[in-house]
């Protein structure tokens, strides 16, 4: 009999052991602890935003069994990432992978440490893609979906794959980015989010200063614009970016930055951090007529 199966099993165990040294327990919510991954040896930990309910002290269980306390450095709800600073040094940093290795069909492991010991589950990469907007409007450099089952407490833990010289961490897993689908935040997006949070403590969000609700467009306009709904402005904050651009109460926003705006989600995803400060075109319907304005997107406090 060959040893393919037992070698595969040994290799899986080896990956869990190697990457598991960088997986910590994050005691950020009342009922069940979740997981996090060491970002730098001096105590920076990445985890999922939705598992950190407390803003102040967060208990962190290290791989060597020590419990230390950590502080929230910052969080980005749009990518479901939070950064913690643990009172620890000399932590094991995993090999964060560049995004040119993974392929659809590759075997991957999801690791977690909701209890004292590291836990693992296996799956394959289901889908890969380019830049992707999360439903909450965040930007990920790559779309990375797996079929790994996200067990309770696995959110914030690493997605691990085999590499030529050992284990690689492709990103961190989140059960909350897309409910019911295992999507990971890839390492290059983490890198951007972590740097921003370390520098500023927050991720900028775009701001227009309007209240809006979706409305059906009249038939003629709907046909002309190729969409059934737009966003009716029900309030416009004085001196806000929309007000300065000349937008008025009762205007219906139908297109922004050449993207259709049919509902709130589309508007929110157009207000991601990278658009703050930029001037974008806005097509509105006023008095039954379509017209074009330019708005400079502000920053939400």
């Amino acid at each position, binding site marked *: 009999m060959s040893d393919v199966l037992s070698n595969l*099993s040994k290799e899986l165990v080896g990956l869990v052991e190697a990457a598991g040294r960088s997986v910590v327990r994050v005691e950020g919510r009342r009922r069940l602890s979740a997981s996090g991954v060491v970002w730098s040896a001096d105590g920076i930990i990445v985890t999922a935003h939705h598992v950190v309910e407390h803003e102040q002290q967060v208990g962190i269980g290290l791989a060597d069994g020590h419990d230390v306390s950590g502080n929230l450095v910052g969080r980005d709800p749009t990518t479901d990432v939070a950064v913690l600073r643990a009172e620890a040094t000399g932590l094991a940093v995993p090999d964060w992978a560049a995004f040119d290795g993974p392929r659809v069909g590759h075997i991957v492991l999801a690791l977690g440490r909701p209890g004292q010991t590291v836990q693992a589950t296996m799956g394959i990469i289901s889908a890969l893609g380019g830049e992707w907007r999360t439903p909450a409007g965040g930007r990920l450099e790559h779309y990375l979906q797996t079929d790994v089952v996200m067990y309770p407490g696995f959110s914030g833990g690493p997605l691990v794959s085999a590499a030529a010289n050992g284990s690689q961490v492709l990103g961190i897993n989140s059960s909350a980015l897309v409910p019911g689908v295992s999507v990971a935040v890839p390492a290059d997006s983490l890198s951007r989010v972590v740097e921003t949070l370390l520098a500023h403590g927050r991720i900028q969000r775009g701001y227009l200063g309007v209240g809006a609700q979706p409305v059906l467009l009249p038939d003629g306009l709907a046909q002309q614009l190729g969409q059934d709904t737009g966003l009716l402005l029900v309030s416009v904050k004085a001196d806000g970016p929309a007000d300065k651009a000349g937008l008025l109460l009762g205007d219906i926003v139908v297109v922004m930055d050449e993207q259709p705006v049919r509902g709130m989600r589309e508007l929110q995803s157009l207000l991601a951090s990278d658009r703050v400060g930029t001037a974008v075109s806005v097509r509105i319907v006023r008095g039954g007529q379509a017209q074009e304005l330019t708005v400079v997107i502000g920053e939400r406090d």
Partner: protein
Amino acid sequence: MGDLNAEMDGVIEAARRCLVEIDNGRGNGAGTIWHPDGLILTNAHVVGRRRLQVTLPDGRALQARVLAADADYDVAAVAINAGGLPTIELGDSKGLQPGEWVMAMGHPWGVTGAVTAGVVIGSGAHLPEVPQPDREWIAVSAHLRPGHSGGPLLDVHGRLVGVNTMMAGPEVGLAVPVHVIKAFLHRAVRS
């Protein structure tokens, strides 16, 4: 992958020779032949208190009696009048590691001798989100279904590491580790 499949074939064929079906009058469960003289291991919840019938891999259906059962650990030993049966090799359930490849056998929904594979999520006591966390369990990323109960959980060499016992949430199977079963058998022999 061809080699992998061939290796799986060998492991499963060998284990199937030790896999029995246990009919308790209400439904069926699985069991594993522990001793050639007809000692079979299963879950306590499979044997219940009713008359049992054990169907061997060669098709023989025999009446069985319960030798010992421990409802707390959900394990039971039953006996049939047979000899020279093939037995399962015992594995090391204390040395199981997260990520290790395992296979669960049984008769889910009455499909006899079915196999499902997964990896060890974790093992030991105090696993989060399991019932009776003070007890030792093997948590496996496998689809256990009614009819898997009492069946063997195997390592890559086809050695018995646990007895499939219950689900603890979607896609989490729990098995009683084989070292817990050994301790149960020792207690049963003494009393």
